[in-house]
């Protein structure tokens, strides 16, 4: 089973993006950082107790699924949309959603476009090998307007094309658009159009068939989410885990009460380790892509359900 392999190896092989600001990129020291990368670190911490015991495998849009299917990586934590066919036909299991996204468009303000429906005849940059390509085709087809796709290989390339005016609009997940816009020389010259033309629930995924491993990833993610809900942060997690507190759910989560860890084949402090690795969901969000970072994303759909968002962890019991 994957869990045993990971334990034996002492390292988690985690597939990540080759480079997407805020979501996953190596820094000057070669240390991987980002929103998706934090999921890898949390899982490694939960399973191995060490958030640095991760082997990051950069994957491209084209190679990611094969890497996972062939067992080269144990977990793919890279902005990947949960779709029916990927879940069933490609034989993967999505462990949940760590970011609710949707495909949007960015255009120069100068064009005076206020709606994606005005883009008739426009030239649109897209990254190949992603669902955005299919959504885009469907969107324009449904609205009976024409466009010219300009396929590009990477986000960096797309950005360069867009800035040079080789395409009128750039479409990708709205989070990516925001992240990209943030790095522009003059962000104010570009608007993100209001239309979100697709649902893009992004989440980590594992191979179909190894349910134990799937559970671990799923519940690690849920633990991060639940931690935010219950106010467990990287700052206070050690303190809370030292002794049982008043909230039984927190106690179960942090392993001071009950045997949840054993049920998924891990140590009892698994969730504590996961949270300690990079903080709870909210902390991860704020640190990597939140409003105080250059990316500057608002929580929006990704707020806790208690705040009117969609982020919702099932109960820990």
């Amino acid at each position, binding site marked *: 089973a994957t869990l045993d392999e990971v334990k034996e190896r002492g390292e988690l092989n985690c597939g990540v993006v080759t*480079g*997407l600001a805020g979501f996953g990129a*190596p820094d000057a020291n070669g240390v991987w950082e980002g929103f998706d990368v934090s999921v890898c670190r949390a899982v490694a911490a939960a399973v191995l107790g060490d958030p640095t015991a991760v082997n990051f495998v950069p994957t491209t849009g084209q190679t990611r699924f*094969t890497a996972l299917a062939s067992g080269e990586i144990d977990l793919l934590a890279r902005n990947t949309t949960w779709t029916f066919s990927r879940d069933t036909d490609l034989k993967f299991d999505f462990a949940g959603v760590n970011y609710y996204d949707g495909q949007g468009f960015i255009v120069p303000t100068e064009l005076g476009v206020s709606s994606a429906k005005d883009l008739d005849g426009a030239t649109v940059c897209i990254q190949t090998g992603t669902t955005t390509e299919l959504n885009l085709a469907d969107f324009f087809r449904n609205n009976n307007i024409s466009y010219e796709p300009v396929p590009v290989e990477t986000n*960096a390339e797309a*950005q*360069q094309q867009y800035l040079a005016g080789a395409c009128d609009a750039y479409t990708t997940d709205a989070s990516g658009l925001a992240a990209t816009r943030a790095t522009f020389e003059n962000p104010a010259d570009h608007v993100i159009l209001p239309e979100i033309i697709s649902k893009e629930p992004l989440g980590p995924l594992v191979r179909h068939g190894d349910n134990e491993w799937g559970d671990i990833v799923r519940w690690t993610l849920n633990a991060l989410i639940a931690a935010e809900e219950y106010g467990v942060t990287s700052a206070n997690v050690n303190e809370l885990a030292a002794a049982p507190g008043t909230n039984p759910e927190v106690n179960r989560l942090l392993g001071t009460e009950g045997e949840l860890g054993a049920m998924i084949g891990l140590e009892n402090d698994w969730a504590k380790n996961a949270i300690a690795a990079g903080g709870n969901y909210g902390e991860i969000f704020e640190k990597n892509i939140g409003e105080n970072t250059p990316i500057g994303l608002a929580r929006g759909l990704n707020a806790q359900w208690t705040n009117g968002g969609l982020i919702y962890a099932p109960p820990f019991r």
Partner: protein
Amino acid sequence: MSDTHAQTVSYVRETMLPEAEPPVGNRGALLWVRENLFSGWLNILLTLVSLYVIWWALAHTMPWVFRGIWNAGSLSECREIRDATLPEGTSAACWAVLSDRWQQLMFGFYPRELYWRPVLALVIFLAAIAPVLFSHMPRKALWLTAASPFVMFWLLWGGSVWFPVSVALGFALGWAAWRALAPLAGTLIASIVAVALPVVYWLYSAGTLARELDQAMPLSIEYVPSQDFGGFMLSFIIGIAGIILSLPLGILLALGRQSDLFIINKISVGFIEIIRGVPLIVWLFTASLLLNYFLPPGTNFDLMLRVIIMVTLFAAAYIAEVVRGGLAALPKGQYEAADALGLDYWKSMRLIILPQALKISIPGIVNTFIGLFKDTTLVVFIGLLDPIGLSNAIRASTEWNGIYWELFVFIGLLFFICCFSMSRYSLYLEKKLQRGHN
């Protein structure tokens, strides 16, 4: 019979004429300029056009290059410095990205304190090929050459020394089997055993042996996983490993292609043509997408190793053609003389034919290596972080998002320096061979 003409005078020169200066306009710099730049209207036109092209290219690039900013932490900082120090609208390169990230471009994510290891490995490599390239080196040095792949492997990846040792043992085993069996059972059986035995050993006992040895006498340096490899180091490793590993295979293929044994010949031809007929990038995708399908369920190894395997197969096909050229260039008499002395096929190949054929082939092999080295940039498409891949990663970081030319100029320059010097070397070799020096 000489009905010599009356006017024919016999003539003897009394004093020899001294050497005279050529007429003005036929000497010195003036002559050079006239002959090389302005001889005829077409040439004048060409000269003017060329001068314009050169001026235009330099005028557009040089200010950008030389006004470049070397000290900044991010692109926006660069832009600030530029706006502050230079008049508005001038462009300036932001070389700061290189001073910030050059280690990554060279070594990928290899731990900084261990940079000496790849550097040492390169030195060992250069030392190891010296006896191959320069024939006057002592023959004993070839032992170093034989050992160097294992040493380099160990230096680069680290880990227990016993792993490369136990792999090397396999070769020793094959050789020993051959030596033992050849006189007893004939070369055919001996060679089959010599091939089969190491394979069985590697499959079933090499790993265990290495582990046992490691437990008995742990001797290891820090292990660095393949994921940390990147940049030019990655290009070099893939290129060099490809050439070294493909050489034996390429020689076998070349021999196979020369053979009159129908099936062997056709297998070799088929292999060579199939490999050469399909672009490397397709083979790389095969390595990353398909190789796992072809191996027993559950096997799974490094993407880098898979790439090296594919590159090796790819290079082998090209090397085979180069070596075949070398074999074909040998006169038939060499084969016959070897036969007449009673040398068998393998001995005559090893002692007579291959030493000569390979020597002729070295320029071709160097050229193949240059091609391979350049082609290593294609691994970016399967997610390995070669220099181009790293430039993508660097551009994805928040500091350097949006930078472009500086990285590519740097990468291009480095490639140019490496490839150009190698191609000069192979040219020199070719010239030397043409002079037929022994």
